[in-house]
């Protein structure tokens, strides 16, 4: 009974979410929509990074690379052939990209597939490494992807980047993808396979001796994580309408990492909250870059001061609240009902106190 109630609540809240999106799409201005869209894309990115980093315990810094793969695949697939012929000035686009043209949803799906293939390819050798070494190797991979993108103008148009990508991305897409991502990754985490992933995080030797195939599970987690990073990359390209290799520098991965750590490593709920908080506060912190006065002290305009704020915040979290916002606690309808029972102890005490 209780579980069915939970399902009902989930469906109801999805309907509420859909109504909210409808109103947001019709009433908010482009600026606010952009912030919300970025927030939702960061949810997808953060939750997928959390799968490999938070739940499987593998320190991967390759997310910007997978995003880049996804962004370029989507871009090449959604641009009409005549337009591609026009913008590839340095060198013409190679076949078959020059003639391919697919709907947005297929482009997104293929973005994920290509990113997942890239993950499969590098995951097999690289996931033998542990800890910081894995971090450096995956970071290296992301940089390689970016530099390759810079140097194959016949596919990526090189450093010029690609402009005029159709703006398909809206809140329906970004939130929809985020919801699907959460649904799938949550399903994975709560399954026996998810327990195997967490066993790897907790103690690799123990996991292996209980019969968890390390290579299979690590690569599986890495590949699924990359799939969603790729899809997010596609959304990202069709939101900004312009991409170039510089968009996928390490800072991109770092931003996602901030979201995961602030939200709580191993908490999907925390990642969702942190993704929106991060993007909203990134905008509202803009004034501090313009320079301001603290009493008699004049702080000049320093570009990038916003990120310093986040760096400081990250330090505070690491020093005083390692578990992040949510500390590994997940949202659940049972949790909500317990919370309300605590808030209003007079009502419905008969059931609540027994457990």
């Amino acid at each position, binding site marked *: 009974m209780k579980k069915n109630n939970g399902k009902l609540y989930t469906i109801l809240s999805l309907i509420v979410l859909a109504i909210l999106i409808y109103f947001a799409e019709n009433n908010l201005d482009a600026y606010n929509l952009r912030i919300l869209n970025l927030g939702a894309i960061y949810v997808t990115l953060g939750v997928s990074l959390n799968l490999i980093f938070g739940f499987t315990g593998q320190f991967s810094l390759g997310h910007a690379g997978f995003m880049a793969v996804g962004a370029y695949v989507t871009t090449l697939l959604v641009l009409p052939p005549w337009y591609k012929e026009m913008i590839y000035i340095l060198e013409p686009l190679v076949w078959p990209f020059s003639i391919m043209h697919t709907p947005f949803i297929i482009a997104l799906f293929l973005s994920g597939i290509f990113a997942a293939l890239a993950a499969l390819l590098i995951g097999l050798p690289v996931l033998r490494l542990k800890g910081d070494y894995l971090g450096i190797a995956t970071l290296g991979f992301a940089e390689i992807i970016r530099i390759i993108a810079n140097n194959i103008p016949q596919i990526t148009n090189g450093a010029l980047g690609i402009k005029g990508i159709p703006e398909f991305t809206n809140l329906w897409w970004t939130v929809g993808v985020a919801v699907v991502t959460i649904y*799938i990754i949550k399903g994975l985490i709560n399954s026996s396979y998810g327990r195997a992933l*967490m066993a790897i995080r907790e103690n690799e030797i123990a996991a292996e001796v209980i019969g968890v195939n390390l290579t299979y599970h690590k690569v599986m987690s890495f590949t699924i994580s990359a799939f969603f990073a790729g899809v997010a990359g596609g959304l990202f390209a069709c939101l900004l309408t312009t991409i170039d290799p510089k968009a996928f520098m390490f800072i991109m991965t770092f931003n996602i990492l901030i979201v995961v750590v602030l939200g709580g490593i191993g908490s999907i709920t925390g990642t969702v909250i942190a993704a929106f908080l991060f993007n909203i506060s990134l905008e509202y912190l803009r004034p501090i870059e313009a320079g301001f006065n603290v009493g008699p002290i004049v702080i000049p305009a320093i570009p990038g001061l916003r990120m310093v704020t986040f760096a400081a915040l990250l330090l505070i979290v690491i020093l005083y609240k390692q578990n992040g916002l949510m500390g590994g606690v997940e949202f659940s309808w049972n949790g909500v009902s317990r919370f309300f029972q605590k808030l209003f102890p007079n009502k419905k005490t008969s059931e609540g106190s027994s457990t």
Partner: protein
Amino acid sequence: METVKIIKPMELLNIDNITMQFGGLTAVSNFKLKITPGELIGLIGPNGAGKTTVFNMITGIYTPTINKIYFQEQDITGIKPDKIAKAGIARTFQNIRLLDNLSVIDNVMIGFHLHLRSNLVSAILGLPSYAREEKSIHHKSMELLEKVELEKFKEEKAGSLPYGQQRKLEIVRALATGPKLLLLDEPAAGMNPQETKELMSFIQKIQDDFNLTILLIEHDMKVVMGICKRILVLDYGITIAEGNPAEIQNNPEVIKAYLGVDANYA
């Protein structure tokens, strides 16, 4: 050839003269052991004698430098630990290796993962076939926890359990993998006499209940002499004695190497 094989009583485990070298150091040399189903064998020896190295070789964490290990007449040398677990060898660790941040019940349920039939997609989507399997895993895990009276802690984090309970949980987790051969690495370490006594009867009980063959490393002589029918003594990687408890207790080599010259523990 074939007929001879059938007539012979099948050995569960056949360790054929293995040697393990780490660079210039020989941790275990010419170790041989044949275990028939249903035995409870003790492996003893002073610290650093190579007992745990033997366990690590059987479970695939190390690959013997020389010669091979056969489990149910299959060569398992150099096979990965997860495959060996699947074949039916489970173990516990000297320094307990639980999944500390996972709940007690999850620690047991993970033991069933290697026999999971549902594929990844049906598990992610929670299809009915998977839901049934998950339910049965949960049920079996609860049964195992009840055997060691840990069911009331099922939602606690494994790392927060008291030491003795953690040891029990680790054994239960090993049982969840459905082993034929169970390797226990110092199960009584850090236990008080009362707990040790309980542990001894517990080991005998699970051996009967699960039809197990057990190989046991232990420093507590009361445990080893009390429950093992056959004992092997290792010293500096060399097997210096083998026999029943009485033989081991009176073996001069053992007394010299391990128990001390005037040891009188019995």
